């Protein structure tokens, strides 16, 4: 586990940076982040599996302006790494990995708020220079913010993985519910959040409900034909 910690933390840092600071190319979305994390462990398929479950939940939390939202980049790396560390997918592996990711995303959202407050403190300290149009202050403030964000993601991932990976192993050893039922519970929770999110996003779009029903018919048909 310790051997994995450094590369996972670096990946978490880079993907945490993508959430807001640089470059917002959405490599921090769970479907990407968890897959990359799984690939780092040597299990990309496990990564995409948990990434899909997390992506369903993440559909609800889009990065609107100054709103406070959970940080999915580092969290998906943690969840993906924990799940991919158990390639035979024992009962409870998906449940504890998703909960580990959700707990990390919560703390990650809080750290982002703190970082934004810190950026404001740094800007306040540079107010005179900024009002004088000092090039160095504008550039250094930007670089400092990004460096701090990278460090935030890296530290968050390292601490979360170091705490949650052994805890998850312990919980999996005590797990008593059937593996298939456990997955059904996770996927029901995740898809319910996605369904609710979709309604919130598209219910005011004219005709969207017919497109949704049409899509649902196609999806259900393909599912039962497969």
């Amino acid at each position, binding site marked *: 586990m310790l051997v994995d910690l450094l590369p996972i933390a670096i990946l978490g840092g880079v993907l945490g940076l993508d959430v807001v*600071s*640089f470059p*917002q190319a*959405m490599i921090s*979305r769970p*479907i990407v982040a968890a*897959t990359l994390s799984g690939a780092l462990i040597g299990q*990309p398929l496990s990564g995409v599996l948990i990434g899909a479950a997390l*992506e*369903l939940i993440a559909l*609800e*939390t*889009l*990065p*609107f*302006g*100054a709103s406070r939202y959970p940080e999915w980049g580092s969290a998906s790396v943690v969840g993906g790494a924990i799940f991919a560390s158990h390639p035979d997918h024992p009962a409870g592996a998906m*449940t504890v990995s*998703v*909960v580990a990711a959700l707990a990390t*995303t*919560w703390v990650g959202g809080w750290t982002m708020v703190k970082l934004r*407050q810190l*950026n*404001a403190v*740094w800007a*306040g300290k540079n107010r005179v220079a900024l009002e004088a*149009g000092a090039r160095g202050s*504008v*550039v250094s*403030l*930007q*670089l*400092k913010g990004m460096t701090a964000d990278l460090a935030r993601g890296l530290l968050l991932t390292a601490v979360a993985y170091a705490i949650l990976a052994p805890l998850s192993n312990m919980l999996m050893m005590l797990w008593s*519910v059937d593996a298939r*039922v*456990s997955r059904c519970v996770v*996927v029901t*929770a995740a*898809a*319910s959040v*996605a*369904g*609710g*999110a*979709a*309604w*919130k*996003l*598209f219910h005011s*779009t*004219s005709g*969207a409900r017919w*497109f*949704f029903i049409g*899509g*649902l018919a196609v*999806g*259900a048909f393909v599912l039962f034909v*497969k």
Partner: protein
Amino acid sequence: MTELPIGTRISIFARLLAIQGAWNYETLLGNGIGFCLEPALRLLPGGVHSPQFHQALARESRYFNAHPYLASVAVGALARAELDGEPPERIERFRTALCGPLGSVGDRLVWAGWLPFCSLASLAIFGIGGGPLAVVGFFLISYNIGHFGLRIWGLNTGWNHGLRVASALGNPVLRRGPQEIGRLAALATGIAIPLALGRVIGPGRGYIGTVLLAVAVGSLLVVRLQRRIEGWRLSLWLLAAFILISVIR
């Protein structure tokens, strides 16, 4: 000035990717706008040591709010205005007026449209059996065609129109795009949810019907409770309770 030198344009574009690097609750995107405009302001008469440069950089680093991708429109337009020597009062009025539209249009087009659509379409690919490379590759390529395209379009449009850029915001993609993408995303939601949950559960159909029914009820619950608790928090508590039950029974 009619043309922005290519080196300056590349430098501004690279900085646009980091426009939110110093985002904070006081000046929001302000410092990022100054940071992105700085390569263009170097072209002012007298360069980086001139009073014009310092005054312009100070002006441009003040409070600003916009969608991060569409902020490129503002950066292009402000670069043009500063280099054309527009009066400072006019530039400040323009900055104030631009904040609202660039925020709301971008939120609807990207955060509430393009991002969920690409996410759901990649989940549908996952659901029909796509491998990690296909799923991630589809998501990143499709999303970033829109992402980079919007930033490049914004910078060019802003530069070409200068302070008259408001008319360009009437572009059909920005006006009708959110509606059209919303419909496509609704279609993708319908396709993706059953397929994705089918794949996560695994082979066999024993549980699918029950899960689909539970998802319908769960979605209703998430919508009903939306003002009290967010869905992700609700699922965290429910799954944590499930873990507790599973390990202590």
